[in-house]
């Protein structure tokens, strides 16, 4: 999650939602995101909303679970008071930061609050992100026992010099260990990889891919490195200490990933995500792309319910202050009008394999389809059958496809 909050209107102190938010809610899945804004060190490329011990300005990591639980209880009351129907959480996702910097018991307690507040749907997906060097065998077992079903490890690379350029501190040798522990605990496993790191060659990337595939995770995400303004990496590039990642090399890397993953039996289901089978896709993330509802708990977390999007106070100290005072931690929100919701629908659905129904598009969007087929950006067969699904070339140019679909 990018760290700068958007500009919106002020959010009400009681957090209440307008009546429009409940329209059609029964048809939308409901998920909960819990942000854990702590890291041991800040990696050079990262601009996520996360803090090292020295940056907490009085907020305390040990109190965090309690504050988050306060917000979960409040969220339950707010949804009810705003006229939303009772919906159990279909997915829960702990992200960060580094969720596993908190004791496993804290994470389990937070999950318990979700269960108490909303209930968990049968077969609910409960994921936590984990840093390979901050999670142990016992932690993983305790999480599984506490109801977690899935863990996503930030592997990033198998190549030491690439990890070093990313400021990642873990030893690549640790990946097989943590994957095995997660398996033993009965958790589904996902691995995250980053490509396009300054100094990373196509051969380096192949090594990381082969190493990750060798662990046989159920799910893999590969992300092109985004150089965010204000990060150490951006400064290093500006000063010429590191080379800016090249789009062409990144395109080669994406194609290599797609080849190797397909050959190993992984199927893409979102621009940057692959899974061994539909059942192993991240249902939580699919909720974002399908425009479902979710409540984001924690500092800087974004929520979306029925066309209302809001975001919480960014700093853990400001967040704690508001939650402790019984106020909504939301500091800003936007009410999405119909055209804006349509824009988001197209921009999100385009990214996933299930794609967009051609008939649901505006006149301009439908008009663009023939050109997208001609330019080999969407799959021709699927398009003729009425669904727009990106080709590999289309996935690499997905933003351009979205622009064309949204042209007036």
């Amino acid at each position, binding site marked *: 999650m990018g760290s700068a909050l958007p500009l919106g209107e002020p959010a009400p102190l009681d957090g209440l939602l307008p009546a429009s938010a409940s329209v059609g809610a029964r048809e939308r899945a409901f998920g909960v995101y819990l942000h854990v804004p702590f890291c041991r060190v800040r990696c050079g490329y990262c601009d996520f909303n996360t803090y090292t011990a020295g940056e907490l300005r009085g907020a305390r990591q040990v109190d965090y679970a309690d504050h988050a639980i306060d917000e979960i209880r409040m969220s339950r009351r707010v949804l009810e008071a705003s006229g939303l129907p009772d919906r159990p959480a279909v997915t829960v996702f702990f992200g960060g930061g580094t969720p596993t910097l908190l004791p496993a018991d804290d994470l389990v307690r937070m999950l318990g609050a979700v269960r108490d507040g909303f209930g968990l749907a049968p077969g609910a997906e409960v994921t936590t992100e984990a840093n390979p060097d901050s999670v142990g065998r016992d932690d993983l077992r305790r999480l599984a026992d506490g109801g977690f079903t899935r863990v996503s490890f930030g592997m990033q690379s198998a190549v030491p010099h690439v990890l070093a350029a990313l400021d990642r501190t873990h030893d690549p040798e640790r990946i097989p260990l943590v994957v095995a522990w997660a398996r033993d605990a009965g958790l589904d496993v996902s691995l995250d990889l980053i490509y396009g790191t300054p100094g990373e060659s196509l051969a380096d990337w192949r090594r990381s891919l082969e190493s990750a595939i060798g662990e046989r995770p159920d799910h893999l995400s590969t*992300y092109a490195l985004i150089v965010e303004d204000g990060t150490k990496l951006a400064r290093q590039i500006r000063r010429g200490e590191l080379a800016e990642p090249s789009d*062409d090399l990144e395109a080669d890397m994406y194609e290599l990933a797609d080849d190797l993953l397909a050959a190993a039996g992984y199927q893409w289901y979102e621009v*940057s995500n692959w899974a061994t089978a539909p059942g192993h896709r991240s249902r939580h993330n699919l909720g974002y792309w399908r425009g479902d509802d979710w409540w984001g708990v924690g500092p*800087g977390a*974004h929520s979306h319910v029925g066309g209302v999007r809001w975001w919480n106070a960014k700093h853990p100290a400001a967040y704690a202050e508001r939650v402790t005072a019984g106020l909504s931690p939301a500091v800003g929100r936007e009410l999405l009008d119909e055209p804006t919701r349509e824009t988001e629908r197209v921009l999100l659905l385009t990214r996933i394999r299930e794609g967009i129904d051609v008939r649901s598009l505006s006149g301009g969007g439908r008009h663009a389809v023939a050109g997208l087929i001609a330019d080999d950006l969407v799959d021709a067969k699927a398009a003729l059958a009425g669904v727009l699904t990106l080709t590999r070339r289309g996935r690499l*140019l997905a*933003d351009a496809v979205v622009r064309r679909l949204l042209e007036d």
Partner: protein
Amino acid sequence: MSPRAANPPVPAATDPALIRNFCIIAHIDHGKSTLADRMLQITGIVSDRDMRAQYLDRMDIERERGITIKSQAVRMPWQAGDTSYALNMIDTPGHVDFSYEVSRSLAACEGAILLVDAAQGIEAQTLANLYLALENDLEIIPVLNKIDLPAAEPEKYAKELADLIGGTPDDVMRVSGKTGVGVEELLDRVVERIPAPVGNADAPARAMIFDSVYDSYRGVVTYVRMVDGHLNPRERIQMMSTRATHEILEIGVSAPEPTPTKGLGVGEVGYLITGVKDVRQSKVGDTVTTASKSATEALAGYTEPLPMVFSGLYPIDGSDYPELREALDKLKLSDAALVYEPETSVALGFGFRAGFLGLLHLEIVTERLQREFGLEIIATAPSVVYEVTTEDKKTVTVTNPSEFPTGGKIAEVREPMVRAAILAPKDYVGTIMELCQSRRGTMLGMEYLGEDRVEIRYNMPLGEIVFDFFDQLKSKTAGYASLDYEPSGDQAADLVKVDILLQGEQVDAFSAIVHRDKAYAYGVLMTGRLRELIPRQQFEVPIQAAIGARIIARESIRAMRKDVLAKCYGGDITRKRKLLEKQKEGKKRMKMVGRVEVPQEAFIAALSGDTEGKEVKKK
């Protein structure tokens, strides 16, 4: 003599014998305005308290660049011996683009102060204006300015001036406009040396317009030099070129603020206000007479201004087009030489094809549009006027490359020529000759001015001068060379139109008429520049330069392969959507050339590249 005249002559009743009309001929930064300021102060018509630097230059642009675009005339009293005189100082524009205005200002005078920087010596433009002054039989008072500077070499340059105009180095006065040293002596010299005006007080009135300025409060202020007769308040006057009549609402002299008088008599210099709103109704060089008792013969020397350089002016934001039209309409009121008509360009949208007296004029107009009207505009590469004769004996006047007849049916192209004079230290002669030869110049002659400076004269195509020449000249001579040029007819030349194509589509803004020998270089330059400036598209984009159907240079922009944000999760959606909206907004500023999206900025950058003639610095 005395800083304040005892009994200054009264306007409208001044004996011509007590009048001295003079101007100051000087190069741009040789201190003319500072000297003029000092004269205003010493003669007492501007109090020390009101003195602001460069009083006479009214416009911001002028003050900033230290150039005078519009002249003014100031009447100053001066006592020499027991007699009080009226000195009319006519401030002349200093640039070759305005040579016609210069010539009219000179025609209003009997004498000229030739002002030269004692650290730099005479420059080409000064020389050109000096020729004009001598042609008008003006009495020349040579003066070295800035003698207070440590780098001043008065002996050297006094000799140079004496060699040029005759006389001895001792005749050359030495002043400092900055400190005031020598300025009183100079005013005495003006009285002593410059002849009094001569005219027939009883003849029908004849006054020459030497300047015409638009004032947003008062309408057009017309500056005149009376030759014969008398003009009075409330009198009906007639412009002899158009026969149009107007009533004088106000008549007066500048002292230096406008001061109404009971009229103007023989030899006097002053202003008229008639309430007209457009300087075209009061043209520089025209003769003013009275409607009731008209003169039969106009004063000599009037010509219509003739644009020499053309350029397309386009608003960067297409929706500013109506504002641009309005701004040009307003500028026209104060700039009789500005001409324009609507034009459209595939690349740049709606704009105007405008004609200018020269490159500086073009630059001043574009700068005024930006500064005074807040318009962001782009000017296409300047072009000159070509006469193209086709094989079926038709002649087309081409002011825009898009009008150049296509196909193989051209019989002859004639291009305007200029006689260029370049002044530079002698060490640079070789470099300058090389540059002029490469610009198809024919050498006319070379003369030494003093010991180490040379005047080199060339006959050159104007088209070569508007393309980058002055910048090149300056950079190759460490800034020492100065340039002046005047029209010298036309010549037949092997000129072709080079088109630039993006994915096979012609981009009109980049078409240029160039000599056949230079077509390839132009093609390589523009295709290379565009390759750097146009962002990658989803497909490969060939960029070609062509003469007719023949491709002479080619580049290509490789297809973009990746355009996707890797991560898009819950907290990224708003940001991602806003980015998309921004891109959509940005697309409105994109111009489509066929299927290729080109940012407006790319066109602008390509048109204003380093090596183009648009960037003419002050001369």
